[in-house]
């Protein structure tokens, strides 16, 4: 069974477009509009091979999600690629060193090129 690709993005339309683009390439996509929900799924055993993470989200931001992920050894090793409109990655004291960033807007080609490296 292939491992899914997790997408965490609060904008409904963008999430749908991402899921459609990735599905067209044959990926199995687990898409979430809420980082807390995604975290719950991970804690229940979902193991994607990569997490595409938006940063600016209500409820739980991308930074807060990262903090929670890193604190849990079971899910900490799952690689993350950040997709964001922000020009600085640091926010509220959090930083995301060593993480690859896809700056919005990006083409499907750019998306697939990055995702392909983690497959």
């Amino acid at each position, binding site marked *: 069974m292939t491992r899914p690709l997790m997408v965490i993005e609060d904008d409904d*339309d963008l999430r749908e477009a991402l899921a459609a683009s990735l599905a067209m390439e044959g990926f199995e996509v687990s898409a979430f509009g809420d980082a807390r929900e995604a975290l719950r799924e991970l804690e229940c055993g979902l193991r994607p091979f990569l997490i595409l993470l938006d940063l600016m989200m209500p409820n739980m931001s991308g930074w807060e999600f990262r903090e929670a992920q890193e604190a849990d050894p079971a899910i900490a090793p799952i690689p993350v690629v950040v997709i964001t409109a922000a020009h600085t990655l640091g926010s509220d004291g959090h930083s995301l060193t060593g993480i690859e960033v896809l700056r919005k807007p990006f083409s499907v080609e750019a998306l697939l090129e990055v995702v392909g490296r983690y497959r």
Partner: protein
Amino acid sequence: MPSTAETATDRILSHLSEIGAGRCTITEEAIVRERDPNMSQILLGLLVLHEDLAYARKLRDEAEAARLVTANERERLLEELEKALAARDQFLALASHELRTPLSTMTLLVDNFVEAVTVTESGKLAALITQHLPILKRQVERLGTLVLEMLDVSQITSGGLDLVPAPVDLTAIVREVVERFGLEIERRQVTVKMHADFPVVGMWDGARLDQVVTNLLSNALKFGAGRPVEISVRAEADRAVLIVRDCGIGIAPQIRSKIFGPFSGAVSTRHHAGLGLGLWIAHQIVRASGGSITADSRPDEGSTFTVELPR
């Protein structure tokens, strides 16, 4: 027995040291009583010296106080400037996010179309188009609204609005706007009650008034928490009164005084899309039309916006 000359010198020196310490025990009576006219003159001279020193000290203290006030004022202005810059930066970050997100969606969707056209069969393309086009259309609308809003802000801050007054019926405008919001009202399953039965006519810029009503209704729907929204239009002797009321999340008291400001950040920018400029633009339009707009609101009890326009 000390000679008179020594006593006089002692007296003078003692007064001088007093004066140096900021005190003086010489009185006008003592000066007048003094039999030796030279001593009398000297004592007066010392008294005047003391007074001049005290006055100089007073001026210096006042100058110091004024300097402190200026320093405090400068401190305060600097703080305000920093706050304004922070607000502007926050706005720019928001604008960047709001514009880039629909652009991202459009980019991906169009890329998918291109891929489907070149690689796959036409059947798949048709399915893709059916699925993607509504989303694409939504992004175009979103971007359009954002761009127009930013253009309005640009115009208002650089030169001001160019209103084109003409005989306009506010009731008709309200009805048109509510109709335009039909789909969203249905989607949110909100009840919108209208009290706009009679024409209310005045010399206003119809397109700009439409914008005001649109912004107020849009906010009422966004922050109305699904509860009913009421709009009423009525005419009074010399003015028109428009009221838009919702029973939603309301506005926190510390923000209420700033909601008509440009970078008000009235609601956490993460919760609701848009640039947060709708109220500011509405305020500018209403003011330029000679009217007033006020907000009455409490957290969780909803908000009532009242617009008054001269007729």
